[in-house]
C-alpha cells in the first residue's frame, strides 16, 4: 500500500542506480526534509531544538562508527578518543590561530582521520575482540595525552572555551540557527555515507567484513581498505567532536570518555549494524532516552514516590534501562531498529495479503 515497487520500470542502468529510485522513497525524503528543515524550526521551542541539535551531532558520529563497525566489520571501542582529537584540534585552531569555523571543521576531521589511521594499523594482524582491546588502549592513550599536555588541553582544567561558530560573518548564536546548521551537516553526512556504501569503496568494506580472504583474492587490498575504513570513520568522529565542541562552547576531555564510546556502540547496535537508517534511529534513540526516562518518571513516578527519592532514581534509571535495552535488543532483534522498520515496511508492502 505504501511501499510499492511494481509498475516502476527503469529503461537504463543509470536511472536504476539512483539513490532514491522509487517514487515512495523520493516522497519520504521530501517529507523528512520538510519535517526537519521547515516544520521543526517553525513549530518547536528552543529546548526541543537544542535536543534535536544533539541528535544531529550524534547522527554524524553514529554514521562514522557504523562505517567502521557495521560495514567494514572492524570493532572499535575507542571512538570517543577520535572525537576528542577533532574537538581539541578545532579548539586550538580557534583560540591560537583564530581560524574560522569552516576551516576548523574539516581540520578537526582530518586530524582525527590521521590519528585513526595510526590506530587502524594493528587491524592488519588482529581481528575482532583483540582489535577492540587495541582500540580501547588507543582510547586511554589519547585521553591521557590530551589530559597531560597543557599545549593541547589548555591548562589545568584541560578545557578550552570557544565562541559560537560564525559562517562567513553569520554568527550562529540562536538555538534555531545552530539547529539548522547541524541538521544540514547531518543530512550531508547521511547522503555521503549512502553514496560511499553503494559504490566501489563501500562494497569493498562489506566484502572485507563478510569474507576477508575472498576479498583479497578478488583483488581488494584488505589492509588498504581497513585503513580507509578507519580513516573515514575517524573523520566522521572528528567532525562530531568539532560540532560538539561548538555546541557546548567548550572543548573538554570529560565529554569524550570511554562511556561515550560505549554510547555510540549502543546507538549502532540498537539502531542496526551496517545500516544507515539504523545509525540515525539509534542516534535519536540513545540521545533522547535519558530525556524520555526523566519525563516518564516525573509524570508517572511522582504518583508513587517522594520528590527526593525520585531525583535519585532518575539518575540510576538511565543506566538500568540502557543496559537492559542493549540486552533485549541483542537477544530479540540483533539487527536493531532498522530490522523492525524493514519488517513493518515488508508487511505493508503486500498488505492486505500475507505475501
Amino acid at each position: 500500500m505504501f511501499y510499492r515497487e511494481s509498475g516502476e520500470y527503469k529503461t537504463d542502468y543509470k536511472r536504476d542506480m539512483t539513490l532514491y529510485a522509487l517514487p515512495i522513497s523520493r516522497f519520504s525524503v521530501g517529507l523528512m526534509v520538510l519535517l526537519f528543515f521547515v516544520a521543526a524550526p517553525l513549530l518547536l521551542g528552543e529546548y526541543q531544538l537544542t535536543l534535536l541539535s544533539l541528535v544531529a551531532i550524534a547522527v554524524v558520529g553514529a554514521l562514522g562508527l557504523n562505517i567502521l563497525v557495521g560495514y567494514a566489520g572492524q570493532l572499535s571501542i575507542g571512538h570517543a578518543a577520535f572525537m576528542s582529537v577533532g574537538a581539541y584540534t578545532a579548539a586550538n585552531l580557534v583560540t591560537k590561530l583564530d581560524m574560522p569555523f569552516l576551516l576548523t571543521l574539516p581540520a578537526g576531521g582530518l586530524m582525527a582521520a590521521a590519528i585513526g589511521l595510526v590506530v587502524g594499523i594493528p587491524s592488519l594482524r588482529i581481528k575482532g575482540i583483540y582489535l577492540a582491546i587495541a582500540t580501547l588502549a588507543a582510547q586511554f592513550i589519547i585521553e591521557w595525552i590530551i589530559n597531560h599536555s597543557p599545549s593541547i588541553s589548555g591548562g589545568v582544567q584541560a578545557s578550552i572555551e570557544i565562541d559560537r561558530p560564525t559562517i562567513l560573518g553569520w554568527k550562529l548564536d540562536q538555538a534555531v540557527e545552530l539547529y539548522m546548521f547541524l541538521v544540514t551537516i547531518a543530512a550531508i553526512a547521511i547522503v555521503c555515507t549512502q553514496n560511499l556504501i553503494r559504490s566501489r569503496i563501500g562494497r569493498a568494506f562489506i566484502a572485507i567484513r563478510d569474507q576477508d580472504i575472498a576479498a583479497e583474492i578478488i583483488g581488494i587490498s584488505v589492509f588498504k581498505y581497513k585503513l580507509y575504513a578507519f580513516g573515514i570513520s575517524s573523520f566522521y568522529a572528528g567532525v562530531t567532536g568539532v560540532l560538539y565542541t561548538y555546541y557546548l562552547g567548550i572543548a573538554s576531555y570529560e565529554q569524550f570518555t570511554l562511556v561515550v564510546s560505549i554510547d555510540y556502540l549502543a546507538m549502532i547496535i540498537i539502531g542496526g549494524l551496517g545500516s544507515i537508517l539504523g545509525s540515525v534511529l539509534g542516534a535519536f534513540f540513545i540521545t533522547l532516552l535519558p530525556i524520555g526516562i526523566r519525563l516518564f518518571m516525573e509524570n508517572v513516578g511522582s504518583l508513587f514516590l517522594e520528590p527526593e527519592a525520585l531525583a535519585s532514581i532518575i539518575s540510576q534509571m538511565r543506566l538500568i534501562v540502557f543496559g537492559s535495552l542493549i540486552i533485549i535488543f541483542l537477544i530479540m532483534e540483533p539487527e536493531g531498529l532498522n530490522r523492525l522498520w524493514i519488517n513493518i515496511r515488508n508487511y505493508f508492502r503486500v498488505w492486505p495479503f500475507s505475501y
Partner: protein
Amino acid sequence: MLDVSNGGGESDAILSVRSVAKSFGGVQAVKEVSLDVERGSIFSIIGPNGAGKTSLVNMISGFYKADQGSITFDGTELIGKRPSQIAEQGIARTFQNIALFHGLTVLDNLMLGRHVRMKSGILSSILYWGAAQKEEVEHRKRAEEIIDFLRITDLRRMTTGELAYGLQKRVELGRALALDPTLLLLDEPMAGMNQEEKEDMVRYVLDVNAEFGTTIVLIEHDMGVVMDISDHIVVLDQGEKIADGTPDVVKADPAVIRAYLGASHLQD
C-alpha cells in the same frame, strides 16, 4: 575453435610453474612440481585427496607463498606478490567451499568481482558524481552481461545467502568472471552438485573457454567430466607430479592407475 596439441606447449604457455614446493611444518604438501598451461586451454589438475592440488592453486593465486621455485604468468613472476596484486594481473578463482559475500546481493557480488577494473577513490565515491557514477553504470553493464550469460537474471537482487548451493556456486563463477580474467582457477566447481547442476556447470565452463577465450585451470574429482573436457591433465599424488599429458595418455598411465586404484589392479 582452438587447436590444442599435446606436449611441447611451452611456446605459448600462459602460466609456467617451475619446481615449486610448499611445506607446512613437516608435511611436504607440494614437492618440486613443474607444469605449463597453454593459452586458451582447459587444464585439469587431478589427484587423490591430500595430493596438493588446492595448495598448488593457492600458490598461484598468492594465498600461499611458495617455499621455492617460480610461477610466471604471461612472463611476470607471481611469487612474492600479494593476492590482490595477482588478481590485478587478470587471474580469478573460485573456492572449494563457497566464499561469497553473503550480506550482498548477487549483483553487488559481481560488481565486487570488477573491483580491480574500477578506479574511483574515496572522494569521488562519496560525491557519486560525474566520473564515479559513469564508472558504476559502465561496470554494471558488464556485470549484467555475465548475469545474462549465467542465466541468473531473476536472482540479481537476492542476497547470496538466500540462494541454493548450486546457484551459489554459479554466482561464485560469475564473480570470478566479472574480473574479465585471462586465467580462471576453478577449485572443484562441481563438488556436491547433482547430475543436472553438474551438466550446467560443465556447459558454462566450456562456454567461458570458447566465448571469452579464458584459459581455465580446473581441479575436479569427477573423472568423467575431467576426461571429457580437459585439453591437458596433470596428476598429483602426495605432492608430486606423477603424470602429465592429454586425457588419453593420462588414463593409460600405470602410475595414475596405481595412485587411484592401487598396485594390484595393474596385474589383472
